[in-house]
């Protein structure tokens, strides 16, 4: 049978979690540098210069980009030709535990939302799994900080609200967030599905490559319209004014009920840390 050896999986998770927290993806750095060129005022220039120099320091000195090293989020794609004789969720959890303890990352998870006792190893992670064709396991990982996650919102609009309703909701969300989610932000928008599906596709939107565009022409148009509208709000880097409130808008959609128009808006800060790894199945006989 084809599988991924457990030790190999744990090591891969540990490595990717530490790496993601330290090395900001070049696609984000490129957008930040392009944004800096557009700014003309003292404070937004100061903020963007510092953000760019921070990620250099983090990379060179192997320090976390941000002190909020997040709650671990995984999107896992499991090739259906694979089989596992161990608990896959437990192995992902173990990789995170090792990464956060040995990688000098902050432990930011409590055991119960009301009891609030720190679990001391940043576990458990949040794991979304799906089956795909093939013999590979792909792990998409993001350490998601609370500053931006806390500013995310979901609404069950009426179908009559239409596109304008979606645009208004996203703009309202960004305005309410102000400087709290560390702008410039990236916005993941999920429209359609139902209550939980809209939230999940909004999260998946944040995992898309920063440079891509939605496949559906309606979603694609919405992405560019929203990006422009958000950047016209003059919130700016850290809400100190300026042209760059948002680096990218990603819209994912899904079919929905005749009576529904769910919309979820998942906010990602400029410390847009994510990475992925693909492991090919091995014969274990």
């Amino acid at each position: 049978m084809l599988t991924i050896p457990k030790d190999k999986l744990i090591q891969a998770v540990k490595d990717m979690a530490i790496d993601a927290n330290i090395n900001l993806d070049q696609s984000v750095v490129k957008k930040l540098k392009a944004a800096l060129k557009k700014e003309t005022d003292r404070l937004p220039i100061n903020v963007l210069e510092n953000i760019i120099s921070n990620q250099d320091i983090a990379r060179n000195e192997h320090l976390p980009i941000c002190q909020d090293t997040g709650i671990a989020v995984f999107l896992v794609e499991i090739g259906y030709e694979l089989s596992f004789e161990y608990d896959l969720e437990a192995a992902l959890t173990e990789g995170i535990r090792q990464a956060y303890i040995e990688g000098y990352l902050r432990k930011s998870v409590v055991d119960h939302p009301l009891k609030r006792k720190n679990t001391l190893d940043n576990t458990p992670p949040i794991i979304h799994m799906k089956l795909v064709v093939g013999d590979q396991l792909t792990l998409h990982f993001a350490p998601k900080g609370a500053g931006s996650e806390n500013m995310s919102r979901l609404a069950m609009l009426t179908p009559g609200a239409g596109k304008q309703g979606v645009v208004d909701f996203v703009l309202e969300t960004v305005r309410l967030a102000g400087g709290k989610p560390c702008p410039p932000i990236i916005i993941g928008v999920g429209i359609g599905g139902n209550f939980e599906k809209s939230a999940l596709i909004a999260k998946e939107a944040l995992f898309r490559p920063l440079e891509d565009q939605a496949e559906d022409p309606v979603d694609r148009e919405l992405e560019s319209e929203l990006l422009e509208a958000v950047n016209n709000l003059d919130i700016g880097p850290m809400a100190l004014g300026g042209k760059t409130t948002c680096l990218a808008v990603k819209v994912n959609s899904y079919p929905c009920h005749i009576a529904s128009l769910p919309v979820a808006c998942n906010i990602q800060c400029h410390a847009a840390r994510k990475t992925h790894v693909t492991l090919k199945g091995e014969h274990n006989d």
Partner: protein
Amino acid sequence: MIKLTTPISKSDRLSLKSGDEVLLSGIIYTARDAAHKKILDYLKSKQESPFEFDGQVVYYVGPTPAKPGYPIGSCGPTSSYRMDPFSVELMPRGLKIMIGKGDRSENFKDILKQTQSVYLVAIGGIGALLAKSVLKSEVIAYPELQSEAIHRLEVKDFPCIVAYDAYGNDVFHK
């Protein structure tokens, strides 16, 4: 660029204007959600403050663990609004300078003006860079809170921006 050393005198505090860039040196204290709750619980049960707030600066941060050879890990600000219900109790008791990120409640701003307090922001998400301004870090209270424990930081030229000055002027664009 304005250079200030803690403890900060009343006249220095009142001279700050929203939008000013400040480099802070001296001792500052960290506290975030859990530590604020503990301070307030202490105040309410003992009718006295566990700390002398006069002229002191509180920074809302929960750093990452320090790597060997470093005084501190990444240490950027956390969102301040979560501390609003605590800050409105602490400002009248003498805590007049706070550092965090993001805008705060109307109630917070009212008490800030009444008490002539000042709210500074540090840039969020630049914890590796800000760590360079921290010379020393030591836990002085609530060690059980881990990264949320109260740390005493010795800082040199720690960069901040005045968000709300003592007169209630507001730097944020909304």
